[in-house]
């Protein structure tokens, strides 16, 4: 910014000198001084405005950040509370009636961020006393891992196909992908159940894996990004003698790294939190992931729930910490290519 202004002043000076040579020489100094003063004042004003703008923006951002972070902080801090403390704080919210459903009783709810006494009792229950939770956690890993991996493989291939060439048929197929993606689970679950029973994979992990792997979501997301790869790059590769596979492998995949990472994160989060599919497709409760357990918590286990949720958050956190830079930079880079 400053460079530009300096340049302007300089060029003005040169112009001035050039057109009117000697007469106004004494005035030149003066005018330059005034100019400089004005310049300084303007710069100061601009700096001031900028400072105000940035500080307002920071306040807004900080306000939102606190709101956004609160639930996570709450989950983590409450996981260190003893169950008695949890019960005394939130007991009223989760009091159960005879049906096992949640019923509200009018008593005070205390929102507490700092536990009276830090206790690891919840964690020790979850991690050491009963193997059930670890087993379910492992189930989650087994269910979600292959889905993310293979969905991305299938989806990068398909989105390359969609991005490389779009005819009428492909446009229709792509459109139907988008529509299928928007269907609520309840709609696809009945037919999914039927297909699984035809293929005789009901009650096995395959019943969750296969529909997950072929879910159209990642295709939709990635096609969007692959279409932005400049035609010129692909042509350059073709001139160098690359076939379709090599273009896909050597150009599209590396360029879409960020988009693939962001798709991986989104797919992971989606399936890490699945509740409906395992409930219906896996009759065997032992195969259920932890997310199903988490969604069926009742009054006695609220304390545990926070600890389990915190543990359950760890893989997501790791995925995030690892992928976030890719996610942000990758998308930005894509934009850069286009612009």
């Amino acid at each position, binding site marked *: 910014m400053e460079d530009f202004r300096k340049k302007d002043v300089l060029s003005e000076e040169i112009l001035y000198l050039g057109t009117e040579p000697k007469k106004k020489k004494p005035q030149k100094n003066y005018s330059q001084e005034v100019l400089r003063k004005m310049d300084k004042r303007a710069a100061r004003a601009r700096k001031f405005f900028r400072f105000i703008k940035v500080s307002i923006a920071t306040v807004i951002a*900080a306000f939102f950040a606190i709101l956004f972070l609160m639930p996570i902080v709450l989950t983590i801090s409450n996981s260190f509370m003893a169950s008695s403390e949890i019960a005394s704080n939130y007991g009223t919210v989760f009091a159960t009636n005879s049906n096992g459903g949640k019923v509200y009783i009018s008593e005070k709810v205390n929102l507490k961020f700092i536990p009276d006494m830090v206790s690891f009792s919840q964690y020790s229950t979850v991690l050491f006393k009963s193997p059930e939770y670890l087993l379910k956690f492992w189930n989650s890993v087994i269910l979600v891992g292959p889905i993310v991996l293979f969905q991305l493989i299938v989806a990068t291939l398909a989105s390359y196909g969609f991005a490389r060439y779009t005819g009428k048929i492909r446009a229709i197929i792509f459109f139907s992908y988008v529509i299928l*993606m928007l269907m609520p*689970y309840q709609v696809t679950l009945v037919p999914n159940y039927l297909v699984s029973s035809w293929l005789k994979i009901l009650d096995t992990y395959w019943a969750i894996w296969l529909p997950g792997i072929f879910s159209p979501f990642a295709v939709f997301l990635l096609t969007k990004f692959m279409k932005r790869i400049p035609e010129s790059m692909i042509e350059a590769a073709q001139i160098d003698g690359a076939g379709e596979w090599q273009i896909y492998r050597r150009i599209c995949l590396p360029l879409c790294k960020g988009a693939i990472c962001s798709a991986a994160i989104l797919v992971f989060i989606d399936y890490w939190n699945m509740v409906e599919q395992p409930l219906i497709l896996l009759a065997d409760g032992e195969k259920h992931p932890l997310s199903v357990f988490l*969604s069926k918590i009742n009054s006695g286990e609220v304390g545990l729930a926070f600890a389990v949720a915190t543990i359950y958050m760890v893989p997501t956190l790791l995925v995030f910490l690892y992928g976030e830079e890719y996610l942000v930079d990758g998308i930005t880079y894509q934009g850069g290519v*286009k612009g």
Partner: protein
Amino acid sequence: MDKKVKLSKANTNSEETVKKVKPPKRNSKRFRKLKFKSGLFIAPSFLGVMTFFLIPFCVIIYYSVLDNPISANYVGFENFKNVAKNEAFMTAVKNTATFSAIAVPLAVVLSLILAMVLDLNIPFRSQFRTFFLSPMMVPVASIVLIWQVLFHNNGAVNDVIMKFGVDRIDWFKSDQAIIVIVILFLWKNLGYNMILFMAALASIPKDILEVARLESATPLQTFFYVKTRYLSSTVLFVTIMSLISSFKIFREIYLLTTDYPYPTLYMLQHYMNNKFKKLDYQALSAGAIMMSIVMVLIIGLLFIVEERFGKDVEG
């Protein structure tokens, strides 16, 4: 000057060479090869989607014209008429539409504002970015726990608003219930939308912004005449993504409110879920088909608009 001429000559040359390679003519051998080979890339995904989504969808269409799956008598559009007459279904449609109509535009606008705030080079920018993305990490179940604690009749939010002299609101059992859900939706989705917008903002060519500044355009003018042109395709993308997430938020709504929530929270998915539990497949299928027709219309419209605007920017 000489250099310039040479440069432009070189440019045209390279353009010509590019043009020589570029357009594979329709029905030429290369074109068909490209079509076939890139089609192979789609094949695995398409086969999978066929078996697990498309064929099942055809089964749904088949169910929708039967009286029930066991006796399988053809009844035509009877199911559709019944569903459309059903009061629960109409409430569900109304609520879902209201929710999406409020939540999706808000999500787009607010995330754009957040992205622009972060675009001002404020301190701790990357930390803020991570904070805004953090809601994506929280497991659904603990979101539900926390929302119950916050919006309970005696919960934290009521504590705060009572301090300002406002009467407490039983959030989940009043007409304000939809606010709670909209907040939940925004909280969960603003972060990712914001990232998409930040990327789009970063991709606006700097020289154009510089020109706007030198022409002494006000920030508002710069925004409306310059930035919006470059953001339009991202806006549509974010809209579609938000629409998708507005359908996914049902999981939270359902866990928060169980089968029969306060009337304004009774969503289309509640209806489907209840029909599913009652094994009322024909109503479920008919409802699903009507819903997908509406979806086709909305998404189709968005695609058409995107086609227009996307080309506008590039040209």
